[in-house]
Each structure stands twice: as C-alpha cells, then as structure tokens.
C-alpha cells in the first residue's frame, strides 16, 4: 500500500472534486494505523492511568507511558511533559518556569515571527510581573534581524523563538540563537510546532532548554503535544495546575508533589491521544523524513515560482531548511474569495492572519493565502493547484 493510500480521508471528494489537502501547517491528516490504535484502545483497554491495579488500567498506563518513552527516544530528551499541545506547553513554561524565575525588570526576548501562542502568555506574564518584553524584528528578506537579537540579549533571562514560521516557512538560525542566549545565561524556549514535523531533531544536541510541539501537525491526534525540558530547567519549574496524578500525598494541611513529569500533568491525561501519537511516531519511522522534506521543499519552491509568474506576491524564501509553506497574495483577488474558489474545486488552503498578527503588521498586510504541503502531497497535486490558480486568475482578476 502506498504512503498516500494509508490516509482514508485523502480518498474523499470535496464539492465533487478529489480533495487536495494543502492546509497541513494548520493540521495534518491521520493514517489508518493512528485511527486503529485509538479505536482499539477505546474498544479493548479503556481505563484511567497510574492508579488502579486491574488489567485494563495497566494496559492504559503502558500505552500512555509508551508515548513518553518514544518521544524521549526519538528526540533524545530526558524530560518529556505531555501537554494538550504547543500552546499549553508554552503556557506551562510561562507559568511553571516564568513565575518561579522571572522578577520585575527581567527581560524576555521574543521575535515578531512568533505565533500568538508564543506572545500572549508572555504578555500576560509581563502584565502580572512587570517583565520586560523585547521583540526582534523581521527583515524584508523574511529573516530575523540578528543584530537586534544580539543587542537584545543584555540582561535577558529567557529567549522564546519559533523554530519555523507558520506563515513564511522560514527556519530561524536557532543554533546561533541558542549559543548566544546561553552565553548570557538566558534560557531558550523553541516553539517547534512547525519544525518537528519537518526535521529530525536531537533535542540534547540541539541544545535549547525547552521545546514545544504538537502531535496533530505530524499525523498524530489533536489535543496532545509535548514540552521537552532539560534536567536543569526542569528542576527550576513549579507546577501551575494542581489536582489528581500530580501529587505524592495530600492532607488537609497541604500536599507534596510528584518529582517526575507527572508533577506537570494534573488530571486524567490524554490517554487515547497518547496511544494514537505513539502509533504516529512508529509510523513516521516507515520513511526517511529528511528525504520527504527535501521533496516537499522542492515542490513548495516550484509552486512559489509559478505563483510569482501569475502575478502573486509570495512571502518566504523556500530554502532547503525551510518548511514547505507557500504564503501569497494576489494584487486584486481577495484572499478569502480565493480560498472559497479553491474550495469549490476541492483544494483546502488557509487564509487570514495565521495567528501571527505582529509578523503580518511588519509585512504591511492583514493576511495571506497559505498552501502548506506534507508527506502525502504529490507533485501532481501541486501542478493541479497551480493550474486551478491560473484558472482563477484568468477568470476573476
């Protein structure tokens, strides 16, 4: 069975045309093995984890913890806290690490390229604690202003930077950012929601203190993600959600907490989702991600060039390390109209501000149309997309 045939949703039609799914930066589709794993869990092993001694509880616990083990192995991380996704993982750093380690006047360095999920938690903390936020601008070539970045580091306690922009597909110079940040004693948080699905990453060798990402952008289920943490940063964190599973003992006078990752996973966790993500992680080993990534970036670069020839403004550079994301605007056809016309022929793309309004403000626009490619997308689909774009431009421009 081909890789593509393993995704049942890709067999369907939309508005009478074969689905061409190009909204992968928002969420990816799920292969049958992920659907089967989750269904099998609910049909055969459904139970709560970590407490009961019965067989089902044991199976559920094994399934849930296997996800953590696989994440630790795949990304070479000592500490993996399972969260609801990237957003919760970043909020966990803001509340669990930020509140315990940032005082009034401390600086947090962000970039204009961040997703709202890596801006708003810090603005909330800044308001509460009087923390200073410094934003690194984006240059006209869609890269970060590294001179401003270097100058921003003085007195910085934390640097938060997006691995790969969800709008531009641009992969940031993370190695330099991590090295310079650590040189001034700042901790580094990488929002890797768009990076992890496209690149093999060794967290320990790579070197940030925190790395957040989501399962659903790499063929896993929605509602689950992870925060990878170095042991040193982990020891500096305090829990911010109290409840079941995160405690050691509870008396009416007070409580003591778990010392491992469970300390940050209050309440019944996402068991079926963890089992589904495990299946996705196993499935991701069935092909070479680097080879697939090179193929997709090649397709994205070709699409970008074709769109430019059709008169579009394309935002991004489509280098070998960038994600296969093509953001564009037509000078006269409204982006929402464009997306509806594409949908009418089965093409799923995203429009709007992509939860990155500061970046769009810097670019002087309010939104883009975004086509984003993933491992099941083919050159034929890219060609069909370009042909449809030509038809739309010829008919409506």
């Amino acid at each position, binding site marked *: 069975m081909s890789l593509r045939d393993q995704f049942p949703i890709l067999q369907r039609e939309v508005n009478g045309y074969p689905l061409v799914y190009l909204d992968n930066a928002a969420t990816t589709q799920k292969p049958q093995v992920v659907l089967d794993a989750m269904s099998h869990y609910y049909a055969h092993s459904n139970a709560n984890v970590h407490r009961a001694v019965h067989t089902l509880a044991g199976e559920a616990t094994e399934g849930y913890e296997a996800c953590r083990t696989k994440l630790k192995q795949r990304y070479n991380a000592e500490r993996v806290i399972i969260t609801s996704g990237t957003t919760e993982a970043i909020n966990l750093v803001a509340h669990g690490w930020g509140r315990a380690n940032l005082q009034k006047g401390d600086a947090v360095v962000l970039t204009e390229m961040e997703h709202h999920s890596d801006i708003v938690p810090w603005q909330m903390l800044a308001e509460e604690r009087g923390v200073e936020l410094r934003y690194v601008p984006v240059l006209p070539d869609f890269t970060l202003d590294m001179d401003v970045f270097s100058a921003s580091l003085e007195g910085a306690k934390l640097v938060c930077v997006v691995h790969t922009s969800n709008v531009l597909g641009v992969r940031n110079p993370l190695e330099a950012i991590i090295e310079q940040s650590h040189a001034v004693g700042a901790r580094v948080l990488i929002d890797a929601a768009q990076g992890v699905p496209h690149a093999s990453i060794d967290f320990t060798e790579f070197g940030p203190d925190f790395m957040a990402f989501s399962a659903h952008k790499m063929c896993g289920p929605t509602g689950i993600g992870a925060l990878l943490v170095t042991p040193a940063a982990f020891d500096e964190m305090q829990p911010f959600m109290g409840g079941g599973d995160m405690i050691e003992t509870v008396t009416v006078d007070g409580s003591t907490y778990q010392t491992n990752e469970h300390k940050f996973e209050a309440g019944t966790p996402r068991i079926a989702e963890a089992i589904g993500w495990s299946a996705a992680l196993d499935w991701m080993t069935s092909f070479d991600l680097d080879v697939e990534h090179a193929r997709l970036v090649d397709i994205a670069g070709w699409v970008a060039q074709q769109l430019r020839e059709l008169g579009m403004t394309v935002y991004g550079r489509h280098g070998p390390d960038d994600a296969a994301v093509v953001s564009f605007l037509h000078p006269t056809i*409204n982006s929402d109209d464009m997306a*509806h016309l594409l*949908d009418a022929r089965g093409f799923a793309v995203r429009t709007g501000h992509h939860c990155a309004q500061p970046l769009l403000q810097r670019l002087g626009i309010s939104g883009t149309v975004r086509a984003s490619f993933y491992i099941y997308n083919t050159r034929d689909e890219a060609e069909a997309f370009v042909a449809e774009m030509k038809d739309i431009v010829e008919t409506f421009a």
Partner: protein
Amino acid sequence: MSFYPAALQELIEEFQEIDDKRERLEYLFELADEVNEFPTSQWSDVTRVRGCQSEAHVHIEVDQGLVHFQSGADAKMVQGMMGILTIALEGLAPAQALMIPPDFAEAMGLLNTLTPSRSNGFRNMFDKVMADIRLQVEG
C-alpha cells in the same frame, strides 16, 4: 412559512437550481453589482459589521418612508451577500423590511457555500442592518 419579497424569492429559486459550488460563487460575485456603493471614506466603527473576517460596512437611511441601503466590503463574496440584501431591502417600507426573516441565506444554499465564520458574519450583517432600520424608524 417565511415571507420573502418577490425579488428575493426569485433569487432563492435561482440559487437552488445551481448545483456546482463554483457556479454558485460566481453568481454570488455577480450580485456584488447590485450594491449601492458606500464610500470607504465614510467607513467607521459605527458602520462596521463585527464578526466578519474581512472589512464590511453598512449604512441605512430611511428617506420618504423607504429603506435605502448602502454597503461596501473588501471581499467579493461579502459584496455579493450585500447585493442580495440590497435586492431584498432597497425601496421597501421599513415595516416590510423588518418582516424579512434571516433564513433566506440558508434557503439559497449559501450557508453551504460559506464557512461558519462567514455564516456568522452574514447573520451579523443582517442583524446590524435590521437594527439600523429600527433605529431610523424609532429614532
């Protein structure tokens, strides 16, 4: 049974006959020509339709007992929806206009064409237009 003015009833039937989504969109785009232009220089917070993904502005005047509807938007789809509202409302007595139920977009099959945010945007536009008519009549 909903009451629709004859022109609106006719439009509903025309939309119902179009199966292809692209053709339905193209027809909706054509209806943008029906809009009484509301100049962007007059767009303000008071005229803005909230909850629309793109900029959409409406302005109602009741002149000599008849509704006059001006509107403008940056997306052709929204302009098309404004065109439909123009066909529905323009030149009616306020009392008649206020009797039009909001479900005609559904009857036209337009809510299949529109995403949920657009559908909400359409309802917000409809509600704002009706509220503005009421305001004009009641002062």
